[in-house]
């Protein structure tokens, strides 16, 4: 391949990667402003849909093929796009008025992804309490560059990493690191197994933003253990590869922010997903792999992406 083509391709991919990884960081100031009036259970309820989406997205797109050669060098730079479309039920939650407001009856009010208009209720003596609006979001998206390298004894490693700090701008800061591995089970199933099978595990840690007092706004940990099956089917110069999988996953988020009185509020959230089932398909070509899948879980999500490298899967 001529050097100029390689350079152009690298630039295009680099540009694409540079656009997206900071999206959660971009939103962190807006989210902190909105949640700052809340404490405790109200803050948890307000932020829960975003935590569910973040967890679901983060635990996606580890593997688009269960085929892992027993021993060969392969390296790919990948850009998985992981998305969640919010449901109507994500848009509201039951919140309780704070600051000694009476009556403290729970009210249906916007979550962080809900309608942007504040909700005001009247109480004793004509006093009023306002609940903040949401950010009026339809979706959540995450793209993280990942590097896949293999294979030794049918095992490959996967690394996700992005880190930048532009706290003085709207973009904010994000630090994401993830590491995982996958191991081929089908290598033990004879020369020509009916399906490719692989097990894998991935651990990730993400910090986003600044809480205004030197700490992180968001500090999350995610873990996933998965079993995947895929089938390679030659299709001209491409290889079509449908796949399916099941995974156990966890996601924990510690959130720290200043409330409107300048006091630090600390809350913890769990992602809503424990198990997920994935169906998807990909097209493999000599120097790349394009894939898309849908994940069924408490919080459904989808992912698609492109891998570039020596990832040829032709038999």
């Amino acid at each position, binding site marked *: 391949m001529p050097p100029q083509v390689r350079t152009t391709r690298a630039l295009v991919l680099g540009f694409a990667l540079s656009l997206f990884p900071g999206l959660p960081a971009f939103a962190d100031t807006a989210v902190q402003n909105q949640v700052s009036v809340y404490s405790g259970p109200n803050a948890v309820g307000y932020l829960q849909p975003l935590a569910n989406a973040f967890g679901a997205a983060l635990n996606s797109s580890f593997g688009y093929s269960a085929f892992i050669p027993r021993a060969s060098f392969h390296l790919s730079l990948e850009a998985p796009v992981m998305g969640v479309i919010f449901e109507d039920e994500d848009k509201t939650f039951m919140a309780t008025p704070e600051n000694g407001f009476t009556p403290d009856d729970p009210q249906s009010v916007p979550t962080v992804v809900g309608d942007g208009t504040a909700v005001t209720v009247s109480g004793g003596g004509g006093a*009023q309490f306002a609940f903040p609006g949401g950010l009026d979001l339809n979706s959540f998206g995450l793209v993280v560059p990942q590097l896949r390298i293999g294979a030794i004894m049918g095992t490959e490693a996967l690394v996700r990493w992005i880190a930048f700090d532009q706290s003085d701008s709207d973009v904010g800061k994000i630090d994401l690191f993830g590491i995982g591995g996958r191991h081929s089970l089908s290598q033990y199933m004879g020369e020509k197994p009916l399906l490719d099978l692989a097990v894998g595990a991935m651990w990730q840690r993400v910090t986003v933003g600044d809480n205004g007092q030197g700490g992180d706004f968001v500090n999350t940990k995610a873990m996933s253990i998965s079993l995947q099956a895929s089938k390679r089917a030659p299709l001209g110069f491409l290889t079509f590869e449908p796949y399916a999988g099941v995974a156990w996953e966890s996601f924990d988020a510690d959130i720290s922010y200043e409330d409107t009185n300048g006091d630090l509020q600390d809350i913890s959230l769990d992602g809503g997903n424990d198990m997920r089932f994935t169906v998807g398909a990909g097209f493999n070509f000599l120097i790349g792999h394009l894939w898309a899948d849908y994940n069924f879980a408490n919080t459904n999500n989808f992912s698609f992406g492109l891998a570039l490298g020596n990832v040829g899967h032709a038999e």
Partner: protein
Amino acid sequence: MNTKSWNSLLAAFVVSALSGGCLDDKVVELVATGETVADFAQNETNSSWTKSATLDVGEQVRDILNDNGYDDSDLKSAHMTSMHYGVSSFNQAHDWDISGEITVTYNGNTQTILNYTSQSVEAALGKKIPATLEKPGVDLVNQALDDFVAGQNPVLTFTINNGSTTPSPRVDDPMIFDWRAWLAIQVILSQEVTIPDPF
């Protein structure tokens, strides 16, 4: 289509998918809460007494805005949320029970904002007791807040009118304590934010 063309097409697809419309401008309403504090020192030798404090509404609301990084132009509305009171200092041999009202005065109009009945001074020591509010007084505070949003500079006067004290204080047994009133105000701000909403 050769391999090179396919690769270019795929790269173009990724770039357009990632960059197209993922950042949206949205107008959202956020809420900031602030508490205004008024401190009073009592040294009384009579059962009934009066004491006043003024509150510059504009200054208080601007403090809430500034503390949260906003200014007047972001302000959409403001309202009173709650009122608390408590004794901050009391060190006498016996307790006092007090009854009376707190009024608010604005633009020549005076209304009761809360009544207290048989309130033990000692029982209120170190506490932040939510007040049962009276609508006429709250409406007057909210009117002042509305006037601030409309560009005026309202000033409120809060007056404590203590009607009775048990036992009755005397010159040789004065009632001495410090107390504090908290007035919670919320402001609703309208902000345009640029946030990712990619799909």
